């Protein structure tokens, strides 16, 4: 699992690459942006495999940020990743976008409107 951090529209954009499973889920918690309270877009376009442990890590990140009145948006779920979201109804927990830049712009607008 590799994690790349950039910013777009003043929003943290974290791109994940690789498999997000029981062997890599803990890596996410160690990332300062993901474990912090700043609003974040997670780009999953490079995630070729997700299981329930990986999903649990994403839910944990989103829950922690939400508790701090912050948001986590997801972008670019491939077919297999989307299937896991559908089976587990995890799509209810996240706003999901087709591309990370639109997600970051929407999140930026939301923050500006507050």
């Amino acid at each position, binding site marked *: 699992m590799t994690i790349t951090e950039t910013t777009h529209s003043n929003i943290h954009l974290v791109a994940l690459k690789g*498999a997000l*499973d*029981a*062997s*890599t889920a803990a890596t996410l918690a160690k990332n300062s942006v993901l474990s912090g309270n700043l609003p974040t877009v997670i780009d999953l376009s490079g995630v070729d*495999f997700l*299981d*329930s*442990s990986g*999903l*649990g*890590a994403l*839910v*944990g990140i989103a*829950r922690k940020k939400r508790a701090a009145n912050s948001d986590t948006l997801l972008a670019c779920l491939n*077919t*297999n990743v989307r*299937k*896991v979201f559908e*089976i*587990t*109804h*995890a799509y*209810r*927990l996240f706003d999901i976008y087709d591309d990370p830049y639109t997600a970051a712009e929407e999140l930026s607008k939301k923050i500006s409107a507050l």
Partner: protein
Amino acid sequence: MSHTITLTVPGDISYTRVASSSASQAAELFLLSIDKLEKKTEFCHAFELAISEAFANAVNNANDLTEPQPITIQFIRKGSTLTATVSDRNKPFSIETPMPDISTYPENGFGLMLIRNVMDCVSYSRKDNTNTIRMSKTAS
């Protein structure tokens, strides 16, 4: 005619991807003999996901007092059905656990839900201190 592939993987969570990638490759190999299946990617992903979940469950179910036990994974091809088994010598467990509560959305407990959803048949047995979860899917 039945063909079987057997893998023994260290019971360590860092080997999860070895187990799940092997499952995907076994399913891909199995599908070479199936002409008419349209959803080949979906079939391979089903085994990749089911093995990832079953392997992680076996590792997490290990007895804390002993060294991690190796986990045996088998892929059995019979006709148009591929069966995967994951066996460990850890504590007994049940696959009859209730489904997680979607309204409170816990961060874990979705593994069996996923396995049941992507496989046609799932069963569990314990014999000679060995847990075996058996998962089958027919290519049709």
